[in-house]
Structures are given as structure tokens and as C-alpha cells.
């Protein structure tokens, strides 16, 4: 099993407040890893550490995060984020851009302006995000006019366009209706063939459906990390069992 991201003794802080305590875990390549746990347990902070987005809001870390045996903190965060894409909880397409330009945004940020190069990538990514058939006739419409579920798939297509190796998803379906949620879950299932996916979710069924591995976080600590079926069927720790059985959280 190839390890994509290796996290060792990670502590994360916002200002002086310590929000993650000594997290160590290995994220395997081309698998989906679900991060579950009650609100405020540091799930979002954890995945933000993986593309250094926590720094944008004034966070800092100690410990080590290695991607392909390279220390993240030694990399340029701008270049890193092209390799580690992120999909947010609330769909955030660029409202002043068309659907096409939304997907092309990341490419343009990289200085690719040639439409002959961009157009096929946009089409490929929209197809990968299972949105192409719904939008192919109105690619020039504003991205803000789509439904919430479509917007989220647009954001996923936008993330795919920069050709990342890892995709981080911060509760990508929590603001969506059940049908859109199913679509996003199917999509994650497809995507993990080519990408390493780390998904934060509140929804335990979702974690069970889409992920290969599950990590259970509680108050800033990693309680248990294992194969998803094991976490849900026979967790090693009592706390995990209580949580997945719905006894707290």
C-alpha cells in the first residue's frame, strides 16, 4: 500500500489555542479517507493543514506532514494547493464568471490562456464531475444560477481542472438535498480511482458508503483510525463505538 500523506505528531494551533493534539496517521494513495467526529473536534482544521489553508486564517502547526516523502512546510503553499485541491462545505463558485470560466479559473491562474488547451480540459472535468450533460448547452451562463448541488459539482470540476493529486472535501454534501448528496457520493466513489480523497463528514452513513478508511476525531485527538468496515462494525475503542452507534455527538 502506497502512502500519499504521512502525518506525524501533528499539533495545530489558532493563535495560542491548541486545536489538534498529537495526530499521527497515514493516508494511502488512491483511497478515500473519511474523517468523522462531533462538531468542534478539529476535523476541518485537520484537513486544512493538509493544503496549508489553515495558515490563511492564522493557524500554525508543529510536527510533520509528508506528501510523497516531502515535508509540506518546506513547500511553496501556492504550488502545494495546486497538488492538493479542496472542496468546501458551502458551494463557492465565482459568481461573476461563467460556468466555463469557473472550471477554467485554476488553469488561468497557472497562466494557461490558450482556449484550445483549456476547452477540452473543461469538458473532461465537467464530465468527471457528472455535470456536463446538465450544463453543456449553457456554459456561458453564470455559475451562480445553478442549483446548490450543481454548484458543488461545479466546484469539484473546478478543483479537478488543476489536476491535483489529493482532493480534500470539507463536508461537501452537508448543505445539499438528498438527491444531490447521492450524486456527490457517487462522484467520490468514481474519483477515488484516480485521486486520493480525504473527506470530512458529519454523516456516518456517508462515511460508511464512500470511504475505505475512517478516522474518528474527538476534541482534537485522533481516537481511532482503521479500515472503514472495522470502525463501523467492530471498533477497538469504546468512544468510537458510542459515536458510530449514535450514543453521543
Amino acid at each position, binding site marked *: 500500500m502506497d502512502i500519499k500523506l504521512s502525518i506525524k505528531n501533528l499539533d495545530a494551533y489558532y493563535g495560542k489555542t491548541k486545536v489538534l493534539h498529537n495526530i499521527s496517521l497515514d493516508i494511502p494513495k488512491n483511497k478515500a479517507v473519511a474523517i468523522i467526529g462531533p462538531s468542534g473536534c478539529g476535523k476541518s482544521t485537520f484537513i486544512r493543514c493538509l*493544503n496549508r*489553508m489553515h495558515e*490563511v486564517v492564522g493557524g500554525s502547526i508543529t510536527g510533520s506532514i509528508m506528501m510523497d516523502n516531502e515535508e509540506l512546510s518546506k513547500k511553496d503553499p*501556492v*504550488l502545494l*494547493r*495546486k497538488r492538493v*485541491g*479542496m472542496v*468546501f462545505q*458551502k458551494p*463557492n*463558485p*465565482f*459568481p*461573476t464568471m461563467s460556468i466555463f470560466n469557473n472550471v477554467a*479559473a*485554476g488553469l488561468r*491562474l*497557472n497562466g494557461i490562456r490558450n482556449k484550445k488547451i483549456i476547452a477540452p480540459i473543461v469538458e473532461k472535468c465537467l464530465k468527471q464531475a457528472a455535470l456536463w450533460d446538465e450544463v453543456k448547452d449553457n456554459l456561458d451562463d453564470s455559475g*451562480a444560477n445553478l442549483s446548490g448541488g450543481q454548484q458543488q459539482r461545479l*466546484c469539484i470540476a*473546478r*478543483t479537478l481542472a*488543476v489536476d491535483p493529486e489529493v482532493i480534500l472535501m470539507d463536508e461537501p454534501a452537508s448543505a445539499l438535498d438528498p438527491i444531490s448528496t447521492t450524486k456527490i457520493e457517487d462522484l467520490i466513489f468514481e474519483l477515488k480511482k484516480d485521486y486520493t480523497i480525504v473527506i470530512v463528514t458529519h454523516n456516518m452513513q456517508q462515511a460508511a458508503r464512500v470511504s475505505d478508511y475512517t478516522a474518528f476525531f474527538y476534541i482534537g485527538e485522533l481516537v481511532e483510525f482503521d479500515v472503514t468496515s472495522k470502525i463501523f462494525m467492530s471498533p477497538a475503542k469504546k468512544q468510537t463505538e458510542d459515536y458510530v452507534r449514535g450514543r453521543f455527538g
Partner: protein
Amino acid sequence: MNNELSDSIKDKLTRKLISSHNMGDFIFEKLTLLFTVSVFLLVILMGYEMYQGSRLSIAKFGWGFLSSSTWDPVQEIYGALPIIYGTVVSSALALIIALPLSIGIAIFLAEIAPDWLEKPVSFLVELLAGIPSVIYGLWGIFVLVPWLRQSVEPYLSEKFGYLPIFTGAPYGFGMLAAVLILAIMTLPIISSISRDVLKSIPYSQREAALALGATRWQSTLIVLKDAKSGILGATMLGLGRAIGETMAVTMVIGNRALISPSLFDPSYTMASVIANEFTEATSQLYLSALTELALVLFVITIVINALARLLVWSMSRKWKTS
């Protein structure tokens, strides 16, 4: 969820029932409505009054009032072109100077400055907007004008004298002084509203850009693109202020109805003509011409302000629906 929803609807219905049966609420509602309507009436009444007052001048000069360039109270010939020119040019040039500076300030305050710096600086910028214009005018007379006369204008005419905009005698008093004063006065308005517009753009937009591998500058550009119409609105409000500004401009612009390409030459604006000459307007026609000038100024400012509000409003509405 469904239950909650129907509960809230029921709640609203009962409240509506109660309010329609409550005399105090009824009076309160109508009274506030009356106050609001009276504002509209006031504006219409002002417009009508000015139109009435300027009928004599309108009848005598017609559209020629706007296109003729002689303003001569002695001969009783009133052509407002140089005055409109002075107003438009001084405001436009002031905006050209103020806009890039203001956007820079707004970006710094909204995107870059840490909290402890943003708050006091924003406060100072807004304070600048509250300084009475006569104080700007005094500062203009005692500091800006001498500085222009002794240092800036001689330098400009020596180095760039071949340009028509830098020809003529360096009086100090003139278009250049007015432009600079207006730029300083519009700066706080444009920058503080632009800052609010930038701040109204959800943080998630910046995150979206950064997570795609945007640099800070690139993410700011994307945010600016979102804020375009709001910043345009802020600019229009600044323009409205510049066009209507009276005191400070009158004190430094030189007050001569003159169309000259040179920034060193004196000029005149609509607001300063009205302020300066109203007390001396002895004849009916003179008074009427000044009132017509006021009407032109009134219409221009209303149009500019309406457009500005519309732009800012359409901007904030977009973020609410999305």
C-alpha cells in the same frame, strides 16, 4: 423541520391578525409612511421651485444656456458652458487621482491589514470624510496654494511646459488646486465604501481562489472582479460629492468663468458660482440664471446618486440571493 416551518407561518399569521386590529400600530405605520412620502415630496418640490425660478432664464436663453460660453452679469448674458466645464473637469480629474488611491486603501484595509491596524485606520479614513469643507478650503489657501505656486507649478512648467495643460502663469489658485482638494475630499468616501463592498464579499470566495493555487494578489483580483459594480457605485458617490462641493473649491479655484486647457488657470464650478454670486444677483434675470444653474446641478447630482445607489444595491442583492 416541516413542523417548525408551519409553526413559523402560523406565528406570522397571528401577528398579522393582531397588528391589523391594533390602533396604535395602525397610526404608527401610517405616520412613518407619511414621513417617508414627505421626503419624496420635498425633492419634487425643490425641483419644481427651481424650475419656476429659472423660467425667465430658460425663456431667454433656451438650450443656449448650456452651450454658450459667455457669463457676463454686466451685459446680462448668461452662458453656463465654462462653469459646467469647470465642474465636470475638476470632478473628473479629482476622481482620476482619487480612484486608484482609494482602491489601494480599500484593498489594504479589507484584504491585507491585520485587525488591530484595520480598525483605527478605517476610523481615521471615515473621520476624514467628516471634516467640514471650509477647513479643507483654509488648508488649501494657506498650505496647498502657496506650495503649488512656489514649487509644484514652476517645476511642472519648466519640465513639461510643452504640454498645454501646464502652460500659463503659476498663480497657485486655479484648476490644479481645486482638483487636488477634491481628490483629497472624495478619497475617504470612495475608499470607505469600497472597503465595505470588499468586506461584503464572502470569505469563501478568497478561499476558493487560494485553494486553487492562487497567490494573494490573484485572489484579490478575483475579489475585485466581484466587487466591481459596488466600487463603481462608491466612485459615483464620490463624484456626486465632488460635483456638489462648494466651499473648499470656491476658496482655491480662482473663480473665473474660463475654458482653458491649462491646469494652472483659474476656473469656476456651478456650486461656487451660486455661492459667490447669489448675494450680488440684483436683476431678475441674473437670479433666474443662477437658479437655472442650480437646477442643472440638482439634476446631475440626482442622476449620479441614483445610479450609484442602484449599483451598490444590485451588488448587495446578488450576495444575498447566492
